[in-house]
């Protein structure tokens, strides 16, 4: 295992360099003359993060936006990449799938998460029950892909099935199904994997929000004769509106960027590709960085309304402060 030592040495060196840089910054901040001390402090504390974000996010985003208007050899080609995207059948399928993903995943994850959070609220063993549903959050998308390939496993008819779902189909007298191959419903079966992962996230946030709804309000509704469903609809849901928005937003953004699930389960074949995956395929496999960039730009435009909305909420909050 000699490679371990060498690799860990690299880690130690990197950490040492990092510590030295931070140390020098702190020294500069402390030693700065009084007249410019505040400015040096702001610059010193902010500069490392600012430089990294400029190089890693702002500059690439600008570059990609420009790259979107070039062809495979880097010459400008106007809107050709976008024309390709909105006319080619495969590209259109990709866009259609992305829309289906971004509608279904936030909706289903939030519904399941909310229902589960309500059901297990104050139940015995709440912590364990929460962990079970939350656990997929800790598993990588690649790992989840392997887990669900096992669940969706298919054998020809009249052979013993090894996938759980086909086993049940068999038991019910139905033919086994190739869940990942049969378009268009195979997209739904990929979406289920994402819902499986995101429900835990929704559940934890919403569960905490539910506990924040004043007991008196629920009690008052109960005394007014509201049944469980009415209490939920008229008291609980309005009380957790803020958390619901956060959950829906976060899951929507995560879904727009989804890549690994599609990559590991079908690699985007059988009409299951989504924008994030197609972007990778075009840019790094098909030698069409222009098309990849155009897809990335479309992805950004899809997320933009959410950014604007959240930035406005944030600004309002800071004004109140």
């Amino acid at each position, binding site marked *: 295992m000699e490679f371990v030592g060498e*690799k860990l040495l690299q880690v130690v060196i990197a950490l040492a360099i990092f510590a030295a840089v931070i140390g020098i910054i702190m020294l500069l901040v402390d030693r700065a003359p009084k007249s410019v001390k505040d400015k040096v402090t702001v610059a010193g504390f902010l500069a*490392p993060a600012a430089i990294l974000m400029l190089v890693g996010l702002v500059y*690439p985003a600008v570059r990609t936006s420009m790259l979107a208007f070039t062809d495979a050899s880097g010459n400008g080609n106007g809107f050709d990449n976008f024309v390709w995207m909105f006319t080619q059948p495969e590209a259109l399928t990709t866009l259609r799938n992305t829309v289906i993903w971004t509608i279904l995943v936030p909706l289903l994850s939030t519904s399941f998460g909310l229902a589960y959070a309500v059901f297990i609220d104050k139940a015995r063993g709440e912590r364990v029950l929460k962990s079970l549903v939350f656990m997929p959050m800790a*598993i990588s998308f690649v790992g989840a892909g392997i887990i669900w390939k096992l669940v969706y496993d298919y054998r020809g008819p009249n052979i013993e099935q090894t996938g759980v779902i086909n086993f049940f189909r068999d038991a019910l007298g139905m033919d086994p199904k190739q869940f990942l191959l049969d378009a268009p419903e195979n997209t739904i079966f990929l979406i289920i994997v994402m819902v499986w992962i995101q429900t835990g996230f929704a559940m934890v946030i919403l569960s905490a929000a539910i506990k924040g709804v004043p007991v008196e309000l629920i009690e008052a509704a109960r005394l007014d004769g509201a049944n469980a469903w009415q209490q939920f609809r008229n008291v609980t849901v309005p009380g957790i509106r803020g*958390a619901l928005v956060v959950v829906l937003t976060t899951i929507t953004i995560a879904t727009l960027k989804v890549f690994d699930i599609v990559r590991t389960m079908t690699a985007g074949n059988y009409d299951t590709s989504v924008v994030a995956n197609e972007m990778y395929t075009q840019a790094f496999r098909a030698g069409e960085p222009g098309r990849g960039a155009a897809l990335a730009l479309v992805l950004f435009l899809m997320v933009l309304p959410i950014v604007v909305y959240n930035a406005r909420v944030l600004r309002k909050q800071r004004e109140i402060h």
Partner: protein
Amino acid sequence: MTATPAPKEASKAATRQRPGSDPTEDAQPIMRRVKTKLTSKWATAAAIIIAVVWSVPTFGLFVTSFRPAAKQIGPRSNGWWNAFVDWDFTFKNYADVLTPAGSQSANLSQYFVNSIAIVIPVTVFVLVLASMAAYIFAWGKFKGRDALFIFVFALQIIPLQMALIPLLQFFTQTLHLPAGSYAQLWLAHTMFGLPLGIFLLHNFISEIPGEVIEAARVDGAGHSTIFWRIILPLSVPALASLAIFQFLWVWNDLLVALVFSGGTGDVAPITQRLAELSGTRGARDYLNPAAAFVSIIIPLLVFFGLQRYFVRGLLSGGLKG
């Protein structure tokens, strides 16, 4: 235990459950009791179904990973649930995926070390740099502070896909970082992790009482002293939750790894190897479950060990947004 409790007992029970309610207002305790019981019975059933559906896939993988090859693929194979009837388990799969044995072997231990060598520096970098920036955004005074903070928040939402191509070019052509080195992965992950890190930590650090910082300043402490001696120790819960987040993301990442690892096994993380293994259908498919479980075990340990902080971190970023 009687089947129908006397009204007095029932109202007593109701009082015990809800200490805030006035027992004299419970006009029809028996009816209400029956009603709540009924809804909670259905709710319990639904909750149990969700919990089972959400855990079975992972449990199936776990069981499968201990089954001999012949039981997983080939003519004598059957579903993992049969393992409890056959009672045929083996550790051979784990031995096979972990030890190097020829070019075909999964050789996961090497990738496992890579994952650790990637994730530890990145977590340290992001924690330190993000908390420095968050401190200045919360307590520094400079023009355009709020606008800049909202800009950083918005950066969170740039799809990674948009940044990859230009960043890769920048690393190899401008910085001349060797292809397939940890440095590229460290830098890329740190850049991508900063916006959310700053946002999460800012929420926490801005809530530290101003008097504490003012008192230190009166005592003559400079910014760097305040930051290291007061801000960081007080922010441990938020730092812990961000550390877990960051750890899980980097450990579970596939996209950044695919782009910046240079395609060789020298620095590629375990998720990349896993994706390769599961992407190729072949006689060694029976090793995938064991390989997947090896990759899952560390995040699961981190997650269950530090779950408390994880949830708190989600909330500090979530509910205030």
